[in-house]
């Protein structure tokens, strides 16, 4: 009879520097069940709306996560704008989208680096993060910060990004492309990478739909869903947008989807910079939401669909702020992906899901 035991994984683990704990029930060398546990660093940010007014809270929303900061800031501002029934000018929506897509590139490059590091390919890790550094430099030169940009506010932007700076962003991205293609070639075609990724942690499309999986994790299993296809804001002006989907549902497919999404983000930025309108950058509006007024949006964060909800109560503070991050939605998929896999593959599978516990512990 097989010997059954429980192995604790995390909350401190070399592969995943985030406080996620898993109880792995194993039989011999195979995982039978995985029970996730989070909540070690829950910050109660949603409760902080009681202390901080709507405008101040924008800075807190941005700090939910250091990788998805731009997305959180855009999502919060858009939800408040819906609640207050105001529309940000076209230029604001374009700049928000450009920054958000840049943030997608930096998030995916960061992830690729971590993946390479996890299977011991250090040179690939350095190359991924060297490319990522260029995106952080774009942030620094246009907004003054490398991670927290603080450019968004309810109703507009704090400052404009000049057309010349936007053209510079496109130039930088164009210059990055050959290096990026070489990097992708190594990730997708190198034997040592493929052996660690092919056929590992497979989730079928049926299971992915059943588990409401989002982002590259879901799209790698054939789920044809990306919030950007709804055409909100500047995405409406794109000539075409098709979600990037793979069908194998394994770690390799997740890597494939993210690699292609970086190129797609570069194309989106180039197209939007070419079309950007000049109708001003809006500005802070002194508006108090009506008691019970609600606003909600979904946006496509680098890790998948994120949901933002705000509810006013007639004061300058919100009655309720809610953010549902992609990782919280993918926890069910995570437990499913780990069932039946070899213990040695657990770190790789967890990494390809790209969990962000910081987002989840808002």
């Amino acid at each position, binding site marked *: 009879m097989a010997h059954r035991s429980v192995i604790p994984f995390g909350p401190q683990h070399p592969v995943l520097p985030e406080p996620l704990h898993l109880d792995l029930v194993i039989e011999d060398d195979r995982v039978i069940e995985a029970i996730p546990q989070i909540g070690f660093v*829950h910050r109660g940010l949603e409760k902080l709306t009681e202390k901080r007014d709507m405008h101040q809270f924008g800075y807190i929303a941005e700090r939910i996560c250091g990788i998805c900061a731009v997305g959180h800031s855009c999502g919060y501002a858009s939800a408040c704008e819906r609640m207050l029934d105001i529309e940000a000018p076209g230029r604001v929506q374009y700049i928000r989208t450009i920054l958000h897509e840049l943030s997608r590139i930096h998030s995916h490059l960061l992830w690729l680096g971590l993946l390479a590091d996890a299977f011991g390919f250090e040179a690939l890790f350095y190359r991924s993060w060297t490319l990522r550094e260029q995106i952080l430099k774009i942030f620094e030169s246009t907004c003054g910060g490398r991670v927290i940009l603080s450019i968004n506010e309810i109703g507009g932007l704090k400052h404009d990004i000049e057309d010349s700076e936007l053209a510079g962003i496109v130039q930088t991205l164009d210059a990055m492309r050959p290096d990026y293609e070489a990097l992708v070639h190594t990730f997708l075609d190198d034997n040592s990478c493929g052996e660690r990724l092919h056929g590992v942690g497979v989730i079928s499309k049926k299971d992915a*739909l059943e588990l409401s999986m989002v982002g590259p994790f879901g799209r790698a299993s054939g789920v044809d869903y990306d919030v950007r296809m709804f055409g909100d804001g500047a995405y409406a002006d794109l000539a075409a947008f098709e979600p990037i989907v793979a069908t194998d549902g394994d770690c390799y497919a997740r890597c494939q989807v993210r690699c292609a999404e970086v190129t797609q983000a570069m194309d989106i930025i180039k197209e939007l910079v070419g079309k950007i309108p000049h109708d001003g950058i809006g500005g802070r509006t002194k508006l108090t939401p009506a008691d019970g007024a609600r606003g909600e949006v979904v946006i496509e964060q680098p890790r998948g669909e994120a949901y933002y909800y705000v509810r006013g*109560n007639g004061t300058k503070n919100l009655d309720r702020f809610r953010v549902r991050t992609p990782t919280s939605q993918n926890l069910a998929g995570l437990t499913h992906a780990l069932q039946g896999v070899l213990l040695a593959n657990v770190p790789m599978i967890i990494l390809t899901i790209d969990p962000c516990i910081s987002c989840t512990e808002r």
Partner: protein
Amino acid sequence: MQEAIYTIVGIDELLSHVQALKGVGARFVQMHAERNVDDGSYRLVYTFINVRAAQEHIAQGGSYAIENLVVEGIDQYQEIPSISSYYPAVFPFENEAHDLFGLAITDMQIDFKGFFYQVSTAEPMSVITPEVKAAREKAMKVRAAAEAKARKTAAEKAAAAAAAAGEGAAGAAVAQPAAAAGSDAQHDEAAAKAALKAAEMEAKLAAMDPEKAAKVRAALAAKAARDKQKKEA
């Protein structure tokens, strides 16, 4: 463009609505709880998107819908059925509603029994702080004052219109109730102002150190007593 739909459902109807949404292929987006500051009850919001229907609407030049099922007026100890048998991805949110709001959700597929989040205060999101309550009351008083002012302005306008018409006795008959309404409005406004001042003071006291707040309260009570004595004298 996006459109939000809110459908209020009873606790006993929740599962049938969720089953219907699942039947038409709607994606589960999220679930969250809210505390109603006015009556202390809770509200649960379940969000779904029917991606196929959304794409069809967008193709026809329409907007896509975010569908919300809202369960209102929930008591803290009332049992709410879990929807995890239809949408397994809900388990973190149901455990969260239990740990942070103290809501009793039954039959969760993965139930952490109150240990999903490690919190130093039990059910922290269910706590309504004095500051929140005072700010809420202040907002209500401000609204009442604004409404009283609007009533007064309307009454004054009506009186002025009647006087300008110069319709003699008939005009005077119209002006009398208008003037009476104006006097009522002035009284309302004075009361609302006093209430607003009291609410502001209460908000300041709530934010103070408790010992200092007690001293200020005692000083205010003594001043009120002195004023009363002076009036009587």
